[in-house]
């Protein structure tokens, strides 16, 4: 007797699914759920195409939220409905990746309608698997955009009514109204014939991406026996007899033409090319001599809107980029262009930065009194506070912080450039921390400054700040 295995668990799924303790091998799906079947077909396709090492699987919000516990591939769990936007970012930065956006009908056709429309319209080189079970499953069976008319759900107890609730949306047809997608098919997992067709469609949609053809969209009619209140076998029968009349299965588009998002549309500059572009030079100077105290500086710059707080952060971050540091720049401001409060978090680091949030600043550049009031208590022990003493006239309340007072606004006024107090603050910080050479700052100001005719005055202010700080210290 010679035994060979014809079908077994795909290798692109983990051996165990350790969501609730180790050793579990069952999924979290209800008996007869379509997700399990569809995810197995996708895993099989990943295996047979040999793309496990470069697949990035995007889990949605919905019952499939835990797909990252199942797929032994790259995984990202996306905010509700945003998977096509995440897919866009991932694919444009990792062109060799095979990016799968796996979404349900509430996720894709409800809250995420915008993201799917625009990703499809741009012809992003991604594969979207749209699992349509005509209901919100995870939250307990509310009406979805795809719920058939007359169907009773938790939120349509008398059945969906077109006057009150609108009509069900056929997403494959909506996709077909756009020019950019290269492949659109609607399938079903309700019977063996359609199941095998779905298997082919999944493979084709992934092959399209591997071959760089463009945006592929596969809608899969999928049973939700629990929320439909049917047995798993009856639920599949209901797809064949009822749901597929509303959402007919079939191929809507398969074009030989390549989609819109051509290779030249995605970023192609490396760091030095980007700097050259910003600096307007062919051969940029990238410095490597930055000395970041402690390896990472978490800097909060805060003040009134109009004081150039956000630009100050941009200037500092640009200096960091020019010095081969990892940087982040995270602005926070109100709707007012002038007079509201504004602050910006900048991180300069020798290491890649995980999160741009600054909760315990090492450095505070306080350009107004409310800014000092707000951020002083949050400072890391022993941190550096530079205040704009033209406006902030109180001493620090904490004794463990280093305080330097610079009359930034006054100095800027003396140069007839009151808006450049921010440059004085940044110059002071660089001088005090010695993180960069002042030449780095001088070189970066033109990259950030929008009014080029003020360049000389800005550079003069840097020198003025340098003199002041040297005398002060």
């Amino acid at each position: 007797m010679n035994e060979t295995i014809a079908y077994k668990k795909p290798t692109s799924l983990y051996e165990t699914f350790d969501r609730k303790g180790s050793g579990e091998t069952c999924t979290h799906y209800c008996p007869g759920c379509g997700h399990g079947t569809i995810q197995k077909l996708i895993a099989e396709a990943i295996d047979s195409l040999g793309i496990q090492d470069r697949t990035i699987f995007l889990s949605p919000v919905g019952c499939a939220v835990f797909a990252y516990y199942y797929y032994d591939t790259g995984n990202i769990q996306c905010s509700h409905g945003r998977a096509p936007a995440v897919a866009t970012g991932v694919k444009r930065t990792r062109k060799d990746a095979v990016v799968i956006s796996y979404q349900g009908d509430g996720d894709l056709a409800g809250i995420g309608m915008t993201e799917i429309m625009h990703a499809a319209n741009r012809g992003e080189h991604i594969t979207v698997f749209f699992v349509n079970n005509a209901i919100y499953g995870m939250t307990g069976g509310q009406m979805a955009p795809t719920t058939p008319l007359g169907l009773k759900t938790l939120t349509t107890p008398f059945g969906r009514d077109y006057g009150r609730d609108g009509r069900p949306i056929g997403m494959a047809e909506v996709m077909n109204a756009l020019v950019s997608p290269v492949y659109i098919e609607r399938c079903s997992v309700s019977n063996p014939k359609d199941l095998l067709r779905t298997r082919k469609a999944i493979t084709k949609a992934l092959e399209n991406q591997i071959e760089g053809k463009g945006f592929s969209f596969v809608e899969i009619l999928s049973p939700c026996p629990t929320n439909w209140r049917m047995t798993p076998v009856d639920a599949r029968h209901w797809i064949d007899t009822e749901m597929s009349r509303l959402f007919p299965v079939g191929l809507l588009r398969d074009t030989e033409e390549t989609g819109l998002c051509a290779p030249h549309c995605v970023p192609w500059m490396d760091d030095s090319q980007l700097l050259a572009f910003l600096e307007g030079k062919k051969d940029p100077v990238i410095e490597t001599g930055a000395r970041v105290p402690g390896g990472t500086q978490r800097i909060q710059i805060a003040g009134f809107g109009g004081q150039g707080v956000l630009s100050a952060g941009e200037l500092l971050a640009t200096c960091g980029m020019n010095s081969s540091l990892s940087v982040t720049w995270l602005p926070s401001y109100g709707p007012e262009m002038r007079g509201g409060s504004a602050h910006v978090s900048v991180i300069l680091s020798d290491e890649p930065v995980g999160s741009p949030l600054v909760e315990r600043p090492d450095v505070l550049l306080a350009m107004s009194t409310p800014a000092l009031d707000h951020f002083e208590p949050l400072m890391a022990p022993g941190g550096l506070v530079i205040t704009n003493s033209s406006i902030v006239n109180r001493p620090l309340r904490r004794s463990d912080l280093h305080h330097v007072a610079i009359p930034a606004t006054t100095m800027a006024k003396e140069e007839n450039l009151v808006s450049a107090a921010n440059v004085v603050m940044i110059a002071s910080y660089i001088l005090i921390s010695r993180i960069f050479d002042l030449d780095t700052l001088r070189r970066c100001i033109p990259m950030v400054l929008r009014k080029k005719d003020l360049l000389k005055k800005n550079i003069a202010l840097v020198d003025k700040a340098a003199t002041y700080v040297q005398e002060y210290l």
Partner: protein
Amino acid sequence: MNLVRVCDDECKGCAICVSVCPKGCLAMSGELNAKGYEYVSFIENSPCTACGLCFLSCPEPSALTVCRIKEES
């Protein structure tokens, strides 16, 4: 002669495999597994062709394994 190996504790008793098998090789076992589901069982010596429809339609990744068996000549 082929066969389907059922991992009893992986089965959630949805019976989809029973409904799709063209040769009637699978049936509900009448027994409950550790999770409380009535699991399916493969009918010994039934004419399985190893077509894989049961495996492909089963929502659980490791409940079913389809084996092809060749008699050695």
